[in-house]
């Protein structure tokens, strides 16, 4: 069976070295894409017929809100890998993803709130979309807190994995909140099965920014995972070597 590639991930040293290289590639690509996407979106994309220029917050809000959920999915995959294969690296991944995911959730809530005031007339409303997104933020925060509250690292990893898997039910709720219930937040402008509800001159820069923010997230997660690995393996010989080398 071709499981060898998978088991290689079990070695923290193997991952630490490779992640360093990936991190650099992600960083440079992210910088290039965000520069193009953001300048294009803010400077050259046409204004909206109703909202004028305030709609341009989508070039930040949509990618970060997307990632807040995508990072949670990644964390759930880590939790399953931790339970089924007992892989240490999956726990490292969960720890890093929780912090980065929380950052993106806060950004999504904050940018949406800034847009809500001129468009809706309020910074906040307790509709299903905003509330479920706030719960996502609290889940991330709870995971960060839970980990630091339990001294034993193995136990902390297992406890976090359970909370991550319980929180997975929130993801479809966020996604369909604007369809199942009446909400103030508008439904998605992008669906896999339909044409986007905006012209290409608006969504192409958004797509570039989405990829850019994906790479930013990858960069942050890899950087944070490498730090966690160094911290956890601090007793081992290879970590001492790395620290003396750098």
């Amino acid at each position: 069976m071709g499981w060898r590639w998978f088991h290689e991930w079990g070695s923290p040293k193997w991952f630490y070295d490779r992640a360093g290289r990936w991190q650099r590639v992600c960083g440079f690509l992210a910088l290039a894409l965000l520069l193009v996407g953001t300048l294009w979106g803010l400077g050259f994309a046409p204004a909206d017929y109703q909202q004028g220029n305030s709609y341009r917050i989508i070039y930040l809000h949509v990618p970060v809100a997307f990632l807040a959920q995508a990072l949670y999915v990644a964390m759930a995959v880590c939790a399953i890998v931790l339970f089924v294969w007992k892989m240490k690296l999956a726990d490292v991944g969960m720890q890093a993803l929780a912090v980065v995911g929380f950052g993106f959730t806060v950004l999504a809530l904050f940018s949406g709130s800034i847009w809500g005031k001129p468009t809706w007339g309020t910074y906040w409303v307790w509709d299903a979309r905003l509330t479920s997104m706030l719960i996502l933020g609290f889940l991330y925060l709870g995971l960060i807190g839970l980990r630091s509250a339990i001294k034993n690292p193995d136990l902390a990893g297992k406890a976090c994995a359970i909370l991550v898997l319980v929180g997975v039910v929130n993801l479809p709720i966020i996604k369909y909140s604007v369809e199942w219930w009446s909400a103030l937040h508008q439904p998605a402008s992008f669906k896999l099965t339909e044409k986007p509800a905006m012209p290409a001159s608006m969504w192409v820069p958004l797509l570039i920014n989405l990829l850019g923010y994906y790479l930013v997230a990858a960069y942050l997660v890899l950087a944070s995972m490498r730090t966690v690995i160094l911290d956890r393996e601090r007793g081992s010989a290879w970590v001492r070597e790395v620290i003396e080398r750098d």
Partner: protein
Amino acid sequence: MNPKRKQRLLIILGLVAALGVAVGLVLYALSQNINLFFTPTQIADNQAPDSRIIRLGGMVAEGSVERDPESLEVSFGVTDFQNQVRVTYTGILPDLFREGQGVVVQGRVLNRELQATEVLAKHDENYMPPEVTEALRQSGQLDKLKGMTQ
């Protein structure tokens, strides 16, 4: 995958699915409380509690906006194209407020009229440059597009 791991994977997926069903049922039971607003038809059917603060959502009916020239008082009809509820409001309306626009208003129903304390504009998922809107309006396509999204 060895059988033990396979079993663990199935148990986890089973538990998550069961939890999903449980939460789904709870949300279904609570859906009346999660909905942000009542529709004009629900208010016409007396489904909304009387003289308590509620939210009403719908479209601002075409040609229904009446402004008092002396004050900030404004009155308009909110419709779901089956029923219409008259809304009165004193205050500043959001920029996006206009006839044919989705709104969510909060207030009390008195004498089949809603006295609003807050008016929020609801935005739809369509984004368009102004030139495109103009071209669509001239060819009479804009109403068709709006009708599709409502």
